């Protein structure tokens, strides 16, 4: 049932956002909130991402924008929030910026998760900061009256998302590698329990996690099984389909993950 998901279609602007809040979350990550131009909010869907410049005016290093999924928006305040784990020097620069300072942002980029109208049971499988787009998706789904199970895996308890970040109606279940909270082991092991329950599965996290999830699903699959949408992570340069640096091999050829993705039907992707 490898459905073809939509292509990027939201308006793309380059803007300077003023940071209005920056707080730590999930142990070593940050929730960075900044302003966005009028008229963008209504185009933002869960799974969309933005490209943030990781250096200030007057510096050419680091040079390339960093892609981050949209964690949430506040349409009234016209702000957007990203959940950022700084792996390297670009992410570190971004999270070091304080309220009042600014960020140069390019967006809205990418396609987005698509919830079928007749799906009522949605399973989210998140690894680490892959939590971000699925948080926004859960909120939207709950608001539409769908049932949501949200599985999150992390290394340790302090790297989990606080339950208060998710809507009450979401069933939030966690796994930690060291067993400090929830299931001891990988989040994909939890997923097995929900495969028959789910109408659709949405996942975001490290590639090995998504590959493991796929194995679990293939093992348990009977009949058509639930459709699975994954959000892939590739190094990006342009974010708009111009450089072909971020391609994903699919059954229909090379696709730019920034415009034909980042969300793909799991079965449309060629797994190595």
């Amino acid at each position, binding site marked *: 049932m490898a459905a073809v998901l939509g292509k990027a279609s939201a308006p*793309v602007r380059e803007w300077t956002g003023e940071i209005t809040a920056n707080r730590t979350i999930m142990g070593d990550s940050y929730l960075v909130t900044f302003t966005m131009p009028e008229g963008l909010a209504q185009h933002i869907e869960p799974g969309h991402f933005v490209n943030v410049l990781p250096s200030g005016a007057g510096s050419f290093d680091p040079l390339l924008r960093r892609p981050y999924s949209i964690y949430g928006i506040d349409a009234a305040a016209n702000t957007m929030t990203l959940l950022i784990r700084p792996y390297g020097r670009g992410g570190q620069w971004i999270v070091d910026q304080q309220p009042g300072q600014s960020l140069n942002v390019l967006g809205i980029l990418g396609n987005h998760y698509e919830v079928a109208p007749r799906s009522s049971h949605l399973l989210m499988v998140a690894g680490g900061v892959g939590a971000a787009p699925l948080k926004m998706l859960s909120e939207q789904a709950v608001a539409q009256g769908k049932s949501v199970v949200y599985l999150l895996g992390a290394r340790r308890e302090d790297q989990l998302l606080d339950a208060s970040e998710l809507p009450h109606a979401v069933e939030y279940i966690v796994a930690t590698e060291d067993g400090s909270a929830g299931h001891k082991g990988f989040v994909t092991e939890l997923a097995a329990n929900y495969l028959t329950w789910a109408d659709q599965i949405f996942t975001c996290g490290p590639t090995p996690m998504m590959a493991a999830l796929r194995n679990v699903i293939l093992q348990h699959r009977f009949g058509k099984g639930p459709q699975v949408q994954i959000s892939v992570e590739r190094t990006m*340069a*342009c974010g708009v389909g111009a450089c072909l640096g971020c391609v994903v091999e699919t059954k229909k050829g090379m696709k730019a993950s920034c415009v034909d993705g980042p969300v793909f039907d799991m079965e449309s992707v060629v797994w190595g």
Partner: protein
Amino acid sequence: MSTQTRASLQVDLAPHNPRELILRNPVIPASGCFGYGQEYSHVIDVQRLGAFCSKGITSQPRAGNPMPRITETPAGMLNAIGLQNPGIDAFIKKYPPIWEHWDVPAIVNFSADTVEEFAEMARKLDDVPGVAALEVNISCPNIHAGGFCFGWDARMSADVSRAVREATTLPVIIKLSPGAVDIAEIAAAVAEQGVDAISLINTLVGMSIDPVTRRSRIANTTGGLSGPAVKPVAVRQVYQVAQAVDIPIIGLGGIFGLNDALEFFMAGATAIEMGTVCFSHPVAPIQLIDDLQTWLDAQGCASIMDIVGVANPQFRAGKDS
């Protein structure tokens, strides 16, 4: 001193060619960094550009290199896209018919493995409505010369230039590779073949190793280095080439804003291309057009041509036009 009238940004990149390549401004997004022009058309007003160069095409469709294809380096990036493209025939069907209705001229960048293949591609493109000019990428390996890059050798560069020149009446731009020992010698050999303009630089060959995986960060092992990091090499080569040829030069390599572009104009470039910057700042080319206008007006220049080559005492490029 300032003038009432505004400075002219118009440049002529093919002064001896009846098919003309007159741009209303000298700002051109570079090949491989601007897709086929459409990718950025909902981000900026593409029609305001002087022209744009399309992603390099080849005679056969190519799936490109395995991933990862790009990595960041200090003030630069490496890429090894591997010329992923649909091949010339599918390309001709798909893109020029769209460009035909555009105001902005489209320059088609292409490369090939042999001199004959270069000529054949030029012939196919000669008559295609929507194609304004050709940019010939000679930074690719000559399969008849054991993988030695065309652009590193004056004779091979001249052979390609002559073959393309004979195959088309379109304005022809030869895009030089910065890996040559003596770039001025290559440029002179190319210019002698009657091509219309020269563009430089293409990327430098570089590599980056990930200490964790102990492997190259690029699946193809090496990649092309671009961005601000290479700008000093590019400015120097433009400066040298501008002393060696009298056809117009299009300068590029690390141009991000006004001051960068001015370096290239003053070294001797008649127009500039912007590559990597499109990724960091898609609005940069449009911004540059505005900034150039403001700067030239403030300087009291009548035309962008007033500053072309001013930093170069032996400047010749474009002087005969």
